[in-house]
């Protein structure tokens, strides 16, 4: 595959369509700049600032743009809030749509057939694969990303974090809890248990 990709890149470069130096910078951005730490900052701000949280729920793109992220967030970001009665999970059954600007590149499992096929039919089973077991009365809402809207889950703030700084609560926010396949870390969780 490496040779095949190299062949296509050479042809497109020689044709004048693409600039390999620009490709280098795009790759570097995804390797070093864009990632779930961006989403974690958004979640931590929402946990710390009720006005921001309200703005975020009303218009995710607009609210996130006020935070000055490295990579400007485009339109169509929708933030969905977990509550004591409802848990949200995001999937894209048709391809692998994912909020790259706030979470970085999607993990392989998100793009895999097991996740894409089962999340809409057996979300509790999928959650169990991640070691997450919710109370049986919790309503589960699956968001299938079938258009250009992109969904970010706003998890519930973990108990025992009262008075924590925004930066400190951000350290509890995992990528998976913003997809809905995980929960935030607990404040007393030991490092080796983290994922």
């Amino acid at each position, binding site marked *: 595959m490496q040779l095949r990709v190299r062949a296509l890149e050479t*042809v497109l470069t020689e044709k004048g369509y693409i600039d390999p130096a*620009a490709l280098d910078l795009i790759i570097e951005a*995804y390797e070093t700049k*864009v990632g779930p730490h961006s989403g974690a900052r958004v979640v931590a701000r929402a946990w710390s600032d009720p006005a921001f949280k309200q703005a975020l729920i009303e218009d995710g793109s607009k609210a996130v743009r006020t935070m000055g992220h490295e990579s400007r967030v485009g339109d169509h970001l929708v933030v969905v809030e977990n509550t004591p009665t409802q848990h949200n999970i995001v999937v894209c059954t048709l391809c*692998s749509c994912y909020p790259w600007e706030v979470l970085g590149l999607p993990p392989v499992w998100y793009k895999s057939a097991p996740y894409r096929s089962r999340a809409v039919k057996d979300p509790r089973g999928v959650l169990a694969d991640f070691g997450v077991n919710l109370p049986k009365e919790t309503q589960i809402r699956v968001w299938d990303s079938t258009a250009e809207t992109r969904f970010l889950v706003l998890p519930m703030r973990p108990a025992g974090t009262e008075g924590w700084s925004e930066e400190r609560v951000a350290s509890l926010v995992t990528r998976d809890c913003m997809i809905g396949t995980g929960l935030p870390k607990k404040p007393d969780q030991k490092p080796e248990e983290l994922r």
Partner: protein
Amino acid sequence: MDGVHDMGGMDGFGKVAPEPDEPPFHAAWEGRVLAMQRAMAYAGAWQIDVSRSAQERLPPQVYLTASYYQRWELAMERNVTERGFADADEIAAGHALRAGKPLQRKLTADLVQQGMTRGSFFRQAQAPARFKPGDRVRTRKIHPPTHTRLPRYARGRLGIVERQHGCHAFPDAVATDKGDSPQWLYTVVFEGRELWGADADPTIKVSIDAFEPYLEPA
């Protein structure tokens, strides 16, 4: 099209297997593929639904066994050749044998910052929205042989319009080179039992984002 890409609700693919400490890319070529796709999209060579459509048209056995970035590469080769940006003999040779086609613009290193921002899919409405939040709707039972974003598991189903997202470019038209054909977009939510039958977990609801042509009043 009713392809294997439309996986929602299929059985037999097994457990979800998260990879601990997963790197952004598993091989250097994956990054090249991603970045090439970005650069060609920025240049206006094709729109995102044209890429999706090319992946969906891969033979099913290829789609299911190729990795994510392998699919991107195969779909890109297909779009490059089908749309006349290069010929198969050039890709086989690994060199351009003829001059390129003019493109709208080129993503050069100094422009990468703006090339990283997703475009907007909002478009000027052509007609008032037919539905509003709270409306009961039924998704149409359609089986177009071309690209659509109405998944099979959600066709012919009764749901409730929950949100309206404005008017967007319509993937079904874009992928078949019929222009943006702007359509209103809605989040439509279904009870798990409506989708999966009486034995389904009653605590589950699933939503899709549905373009207006996918819906009729119910």
